[in-house]
């Protein structure tokens, strides 16, 4: 019996070994190595030198750019998620209507999400030029000129990136919300009608609670992604302008454009990881308060 179990177990290991090996080599070992490097000075050339908590001390208390970068991603995440989800909700209601050619509209709104971020950044880089189309349009109504990502003001740069990401991501969120809307049973809505609920009451008491699992999913994944944002800020950064750096840009710079401060990069990576983890746990705890699952 024992031999048979052992024999089966051996074959089991053989079958799962491709996955186990890739998990070990491509995920677990790099992760453990990154944890080790967070406590070292390492430049990719000399062997790592153990420095204890020195990197974390530098990140949390000595580097003047770390806290502004965290402020930037929080502002980015909150603004982006709030505006994007509001717009996506309105869009989902519109796309749920029985208009002619509604499928075409659904495709049109989803297309920006399929556009590579490099292309999107180039388009917005042109729109945001000091003599670009946006400033020209604003000048007709007496506004501007705005400096967008050229601005020395971190908030103006962040807003520029927020609008670019909303353009790109609103279609994606609206598709989830549309699916959520279409998943609401017509019987429940009819029951609300029979009970004499108004449109607002129906939305607040029936539609919103039933949509809350979808919204919760979008918020939790949206914040986790936004707090780790890199490409839009990196690609849209105006040369020489460091007004709005985000953590991943600093990590990138420490690894590639400076003398290989891998220790700082790893330490900051874990600081951001724990920040996202804690925020996700808080969201998960708050889930019980406002997310309703249909029984």
């Amino acid at each position, binding site marked *: 019996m024992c031999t048979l179990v052992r024999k089966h177990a051996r074959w089991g290991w053989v079958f799962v070994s491709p996955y186990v090996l890739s998990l070990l080599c491509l995920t677990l070992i790099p992760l453990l190595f990154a944890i080790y490097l967070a406590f070292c000075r390492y430049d*990719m050339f*000399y062997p790592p030198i153990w420095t204890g908590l020195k990197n974390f001390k530098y990140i949390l208390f000595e580097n003047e750019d770390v806290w502004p970068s965290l402020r930037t991603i929080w502002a980015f995440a909150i603004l982006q998620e709030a505006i994007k989800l509001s717009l996506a909700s309105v869009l989902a209601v519109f796309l749920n209507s029985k208009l002619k050619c509604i499928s075409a509209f659904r495709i049109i709104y989803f297309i920006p999400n399929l556009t590579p971020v490099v292309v999107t950044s180039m388009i917005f880089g042109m729109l945001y030029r000091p003599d670009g189309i946006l400033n020209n349009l604003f000048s007709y109504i007496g506004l501007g000129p705005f400096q967008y990502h050229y601005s020395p003001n971190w908030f103006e740069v962040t807003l520029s990136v927020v609008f670019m990401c909303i353009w790109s991501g609103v279609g994606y969120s609206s598709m989830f919300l549309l699916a959520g809307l279409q998943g609401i049973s017509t019987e429940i809505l009819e029951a609300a009608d029979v009970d004499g609920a108004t449109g607002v009451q129906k939305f607040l008491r029936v539609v919103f609670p039933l949509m809350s699992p979808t919204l919760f999913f979008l918020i939790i994944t949206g914040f986790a992604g936004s707090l780790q944002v890199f490409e839009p800020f990196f690609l849209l950064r*105006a040369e020489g302008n460091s007004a709005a750096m985000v953590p991943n840009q600093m990590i990138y710079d420490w690894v590639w454009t400076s003398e290989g401060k891998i220790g700082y990069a790893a330490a900051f990576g874990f600081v951001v990881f724990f920040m996202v983890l804690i925020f996700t746990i808080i969201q998960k705890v708050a889930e019980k308060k406002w997310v309703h699952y249909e029984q």
Partner: protein
Amino acid sequence: MKKFLCILLAFSMVFALSACTGGERGIGEAELLEGYDPNAAVTLKIGSPGGDTITPQEIIDNFDAAFPNITLEVDVAAWGEFQRKLKTQLAAKDPSHVFMNDSGYNASLGGKGAVMNLKGLIDRDINAEDYTAALFAATDAEGHVWGVPHAMNSIAILYNKKLFDEAGLAYPTEDWTFEEMNEMAKKLTKDENGDGEPEVYGYASSYNITEGYLPYVLASGGRLLDETRKISQFNTPEVLKGFERLYQPIEEGFSPTQQWISAQPGGTRILPFVKGQIAIILAQSSNIRAINENKADDFEYDAAPIPIGWDGNRYSVYVPNMWGIYSGATEQEKGAAWEFLKYYLSEEAQDITGKYCLSGYPIRKSTLSNIENNEEAVPRNVGAYFRYIDEFGETLFENPCWSEWNGVVAGYAAEIVRGEKVAAEIMPEVHEKVQEALDYYYNY
């Protein structure tokens, strides 16, 4: 099974750690590669950032034909990507045997012993008198020579002849000064419709090190670092004066703002210069190709040497991007790499470099003389770019942590030139940050 997994994990960790270690910290002795057999077959990997847009393919092909025993593998990557690629290749101990790099990063690799000290080989095989002083531009404070120049990307003043004629101004002379240049630029600035935004600016300031703050700091008698290149000099009055003088043209309205320049096609000063919106620019030689390709047939411009500074001296700044040889290569690979560099410095290859001038001028005097005497050269006074290198040449104060401290200064310089910060107020902070970057490398 748990025990087995633990052992496997521990083994993997040790393996991962050992794979990521490099050589011991130490500075290479000058090697003479006496064990190199010139007739033995060897494969030589050449790292070529920018490929044939930076290094003429003709040079690679000619070398390939002249050395049949050396099999070439050319590793090409975009300029910006190459450094990142090289960094990982060095960590894996598998870089190209000879590679080109910017002078700052080459100094960094020299400080880590990643590239060979070529002093002995140059002294043995190269007649230094045939070359400008740039041949030894990669020499550090201890006398090691970490590479040989790919080209000299030097600076000079370019001016629009038609705008000078219209303003009735004489063209710049060899011994003109920065003060005279500013006076000319003021006279060349034209705001004919009186809207406060000139149609023609006399000059255009830049904030980068080579075309921006370094020439002004030097012309004000300042130095960025001390002789050991371990101590910041950004707290000296001369450096402060340099930054203030860099901003002066913008402050006084005879240079456009950076915002104006960013809004122009291409986002640089080159196209506005070609279109006659800027009369004078301080430009690196690598810009000449773009100017000549974009200029109209009737656009006439010429070059003048960098003016004499406020301290009475002239400084001719140049960027000597370097060829370095990987110190971890075998003796045979290093020997083949040195053969390549000897060929690169030969008259034939230097003439090819001079023919294309892709990223600057060659360093061989005879080639430079031919370029200067070429009646068809555009700009005609092309010698202004290299005539003073021997006497007044100055590189970018490269040291092993150059990219680190230069990155710090670049951010502040941009803020000063954009008018967001006042030089006098932030220079103590610049000094502190630069010294911090130097200390991180030297005293950590």
